[in-house]
């Protein structure tokens, strides 16, 4: 047997299981969701059949744009989308401002200390997500800050901070320190060295960190449900409510698709910006 053929077979065996897994549990459900968003809701929840039952000619069946029309007909849904984007944006910005100095500190620490510091950054993951969020209820409750947009952003920032620190640190750690010497040598003070050299070189790290925080926050429902008030409903809560509460699968599907499309648009934008930054610093 030829070597190339053997290698091809090996490669097949390596990539087949994850590919199959993703097809079965990601691509297929996504397609089902797309399809569901164009269907009628079932009489007792779930979905109406795709084809008319000859025995019941009055029942709803087939495909429709009804749920999309409904989505755009009521300003409340656009409002919730905008609010969700606002929370995601605020969380991302706070994470960035909080993570940057920390990432810089780790990147400029002696090499032997860096691994330990990175470990400390991810250590919160070792405890359960819900426990961490409940802890915030205990902290914010007595301060009379619970069940507010503020509490939601605090919870979001707390949970997502490591996702900003890690890509930033990975980027900053690669900077050649001689560039800062050169900048200083050519007359740049400490602020100018940061603003003219470190910051622009870290843009790819900022973009990947922002994407890693922004996108999950957009779909998050547990934190607003636990820490937010009644007016702090986000898209995530809305979607969850459609599937588990009112059992309106088509509308839940529509909301999911709208969210996915928007997130993909943002991800494409971030990836484009990151690529632009990386190409220049490469």
């Amino acid at each position, binding site marked *: 047997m030829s070597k190339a053929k053997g290698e091809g077979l090996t490669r097949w065996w390596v990539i087949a299981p994850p590919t199959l897994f993703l097809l079965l549990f990601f691509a297929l459900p996504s397609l089902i969701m797309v399809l569901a968003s164009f269907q009628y809701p079932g009489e007792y929840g779930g979905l109406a059949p795709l084809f008319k039952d000859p025995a019941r000619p009055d029942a709803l069946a087939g495909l429709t744009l009804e749920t999309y029309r409904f989505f755009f007909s009521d300003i409340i849904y656009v409002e919730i989308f905008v609010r969700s984007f606002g929370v995601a944006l605020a969380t991302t910005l706070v994470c960035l401002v909080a993570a940057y100095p920390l990432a810089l500190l780790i990147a400029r620490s002696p090499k032997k200390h860096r691994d330990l510091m990175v470990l400390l950054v991810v250590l919160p993951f070792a405890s359960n997500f819900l426990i961490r969020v409940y802890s915030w209820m205990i902290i914010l409750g007595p301060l009379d800050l619970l069940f507010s947009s503020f509490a939601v952003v605090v919870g979001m920032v707390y949970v997502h901070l490591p996702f900003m620190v890690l890509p930033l640190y990975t980027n900053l750690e690669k900077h*050649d320190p*001689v*560039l800062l*010497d*050169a*900048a*200083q*040598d*050519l*007359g*740049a*003070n400490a602020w*100018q060295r940061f603003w*003219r*050299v470190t910051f*622009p*070189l870290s843009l790819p790290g900022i973009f990947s960190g922002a994407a890693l925080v922004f996108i999950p926050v957009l779909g998050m429902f547990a934190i607003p449900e636990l820490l937010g008030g009644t007016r702090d409903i986000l898209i995530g809560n809305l979607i969850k409510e459609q599937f588990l509460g009112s059992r309106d699968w088509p509308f839940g599907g529509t909301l999911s698709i709208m969210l996915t499309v928007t997130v993909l648009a943002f991800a494409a934008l971030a990836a484009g910006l990151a690529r632009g*930054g990386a190409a*220049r*610093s*490469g």
Partner: protein
Amino acid sequence: MALLEILDVSRRFGEFTAVDNVSFAVEAGEFFTLLGPSGCGKTTLLRMIAGFDLPDAGRILLDGRDLADTPPERRPIHTVFQSYALFPHLTVAENVAFPLKMAGLAAAEIKRRTAEALDDVRLADKGGRYPHELSGGQKQRVALARGLVNRPRLLLLDEPLGALDAKLREEMQLELINLQKEVGVTFVFVTHAQAEALALSHRIAVMNEGRVEQMDEPSKIYGFPKNRFVADFIGNINMMQAKVARAEASRLLLDVPGLGTVEAPPRPDAAPGAAGVFAIRPEQVRISAEDHPVELKNRFVGTVHDLLYIGDVTTYIVDLPNGVKVEALLANSAPGRAQLFEAGDRVAVAWRHDAGMFLHE
């Protein structure tokens, strides 16, 4: 008054003394080179002049003013780093404009002077490129333009030609000399490549183990090395054990085991009986057939041990009695090899009575 004065400067790192009580002065407009093997302290000294490091003792003066309290960004001194340290996120023009921007110049002035500086290094058409799109030589020229654009009092160059291949290095050497002449900025150049130092500098300070061994013009350093280290480090040199037999006003008579008496130029500090080496450059040694008459007192017969054909010259390694080996250089002025001595041939080596020198142990 000298432009740059290094006064009794020392720098220690723990037990290790990187710079040991060094003093020298650099005049305005000079091309001054710090030459030495790696670890001799030349880079530490350069970093102290730039301000990235401070001396433990001694003072560094620029135009008579102590620089101790001036941080690097406020010293009118720029550095061309060994790795060039170009900003990867800025274009060539933005890199060159960087020091002007930091100095707070007006946009129009920045534009004019950036264009001028790029023109000086023949990169006028590359202003819009990014550093990673340039060749090594071009990066080097951008680094030079960036270092010179706002006319510092002093430009420090840290092994700037080290990363270039031989041919390009030679080109850049000529370019550096011309550029320095043109802009009139004082250069302090650091290198471990002695040929580079000889070719470029007005004056050279040869450093070893944190000290300056000798400081002089290139021809003096090459022709009259002060001690064995300098003689050995700069160029090729033959050395043979020798003892002063007689010291006269016009000459030294040396006793070289295996050769007998060798006549050498006088040296006031060489007393009879002093031990040391007799050192002579290969190009000062003439090689001829054994029976070829030569009117030189320093003439010895030996056997060709080996030869290296280098192209422009051939180096012959000649075995003399008592294990003494002498290298002789012969220019290949005629087509092919200059003279057809082969390994094993009996030959005579000879040199003038005023060539070579006695160096103390």
